[in-house]
């Protein structure tokens, strides 16, 4: 239940980030609670991936406050993000094709027993995590290169679950997948939500977004441009906010110089 937990699992306030003359994010606000799927949508260059990278600790914001369960924190590195319980799956998945599923899941944090690796425990946990997701990966000992796009996405999502994260960030998880594979990934997202994780979903596909999101946050030219209920709002409202046909009341219009030049 999202029975109004008092503190959001992660909150970002007034985030600014610029790359030289390009202002990628301006005063961005984002809150996410446990047991909630928040979709981050916007045009190319709206700042979605920049925001994801800030949450993942890849980029450091120029200004703004990040709070984890109400406590101000800084995320200077991906390791720090991991320690805060934030796991991110980027578009390229970052899997090693030549390694098998178990090795990919434990890449860089292999379990050890004595001098060797604790293969048995790793394999068992890998199976359990994949089963928790209802993932259809027949064998955990095949190289990742033999898996389909959807199965690779399943492995990448399963990897995030090993650290029992509070927040899972998924960057375009259904891009370039077939319909059956997208169906699988969307089901995983609902499963993550049911398991009590906070999920941030970045996607272009309005149908996918509205299928699983509890809340849709629109970014436009690096600024918040509206927050919509995933259940109550229509395609038209969200798309109007993405394209700028509607703007959030009280915000100044985007300066002409900033148009179409934001960096990723």
């Amino acid at each position, binding site marked *: 239940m999202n029975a109004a937990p008092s503190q959001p699992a992660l909150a970002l306030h007034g985030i600014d980030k610029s790359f030289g003359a390009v202002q990628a994010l301006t005063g961005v606000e984002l809150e996410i609670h446990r047991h909630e799927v928040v979709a981050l949508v916007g045009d190319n260059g709206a700042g979605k991936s920049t925001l994801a990278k800030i949450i993942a600790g890849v980029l450091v914001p120029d200004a703004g406050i990040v709070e984890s369960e109400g406590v101000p924190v800084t995320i200077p590195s991906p390791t720090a993000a991991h320690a805060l319980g934030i796991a991110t799956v980027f578009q390229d998945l970052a899997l090693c094709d030549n390694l098998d599923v178990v090795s990919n899941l434990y890449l860089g944090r292999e379990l050890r027993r004595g001098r060797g690796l604790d293969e048995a425990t790793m394999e068992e946990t890998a199976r359990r995590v994949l089963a928790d997701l209802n993932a259809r990966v027949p064998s955990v000992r095949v190289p990742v*290169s033999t898996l389909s796009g959807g199965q690779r996405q399943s492995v990448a999502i399963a990897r995030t679950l090993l650290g029992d994260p509070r927040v899972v960030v998924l960057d375009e998880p259904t891009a370039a997948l077939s319909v*059956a594979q997208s*169906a699988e990934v969307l*089901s995983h997202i609902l499963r993550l939500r049911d398991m009590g994780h906070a999920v941030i979903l970045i996607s272009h596909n309005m*149908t996918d977004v509205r299928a699983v999101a509890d*809340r849709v946050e629109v970014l436009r030219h690096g600024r918040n441009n509206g927050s919509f209920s995933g259940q109550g709002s229509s395609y038209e409202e969200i798309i109007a906010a993405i394209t700028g046909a509607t703007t959030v009341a009280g915000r100044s219009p985007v300066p002409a110089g900033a148009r179409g030049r934001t960096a990723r």
Partner: protein
Amino acid sequence: MEAVRRYGGLTQVELAEATGLSTATVSTIVKELTGAGVVETHPASRSGRRAQMVTLARRLGVVGAVQFGRRHLTVALGDPTREILAEQRMPLPVDHRVDTGLDRAALLVVELLERVGASTDELLTVGVALPAPVDQDTGMIAVQGVMRGWDGIHVGQVLSKRLARPVVVDNDANLAALAEHELGATRTHRDSIFVRASHGTGAGIVLGGRLHRGYAGTAGEIGHVQVDPSGPICRCGNRGCLETVVGSEALLALVRSSHGELTLRDLVQGAVDGDPGCRRVVADAGDRIGSVVAALATTLNPQAIVVGGELAETGDVLLGPFRESLRRHLVPNTIAPVEVLASELGPRAEILGALALALSATDMAADGLTVASSPSIEGDPT
């Protein structure tokens, strides 16, 4: 067996991995099952090495089933013995679009055929379940506005054009009633009512062992029986329908101020976990649905009433007040009081019903094994 069904098809080596058995054991089991005609093996290759692909045996082709819910789409393939060969569920948005939905359904059917290693020629027919009353003669939704944006679309025709196969369409509660009658809780009953309490509310009626759809498909539409003359306007255009009181939107609105924004699944889970607010909402819905079903049961006098749909997953939280309400409103029959049963097929009732409908549309005998068949309409596979 379970592993083969779950993955649709997989090689013997993968099967050993998935089941935790040794490859030698798997090989022996597969040989035995092949001998018994339960599974089939096909030569395949995995990462350049030869392998044996194991799938469930399909002697007489496969039939497809598609279920559209308010928030999901399920596509399954089955064989003539009603065994589900492969299944995929996909979440859908509120008020999902008809063009996107039908397109995805068609693609999913084709992808599932690939998953079980079948060619498109092996597909015989497809049955479709919709959460709206369907007119059997025209195959269109009989009441305007019940599914936003789907009015005037000939669902069967659009899909059969895409798949080049005959497509039959029916209401989801009707198909669930059919499935429970053929395979589930009411196998031994002649007259039964299936009540589907989910995002919407509907009923399927089986009389004398046959599905009763009514002249234009709206029989059993209990969701649109008026329960509150001064209630809000329903999607169908009438006022104070049962669905405006126990539909998911109404139920979720009741907990919004106390629990925040929930989904129907959250509400059901909350009731199962013992959250008092969620239990109360579901229990009151059971009471309200019971009073409407009582009127239907008084008219039809069924042997049994089966309750299914998402709300029924709360078990006695829904069924207790439902039974109590029936007892108070139903004409007391001392000789043979009506039985109230939980759905045996659960969330799979609708998809199994769609499979049964698709099967009945082929010229195959009920047991499916004696008569060879061909699709009744030949078309170019696209």
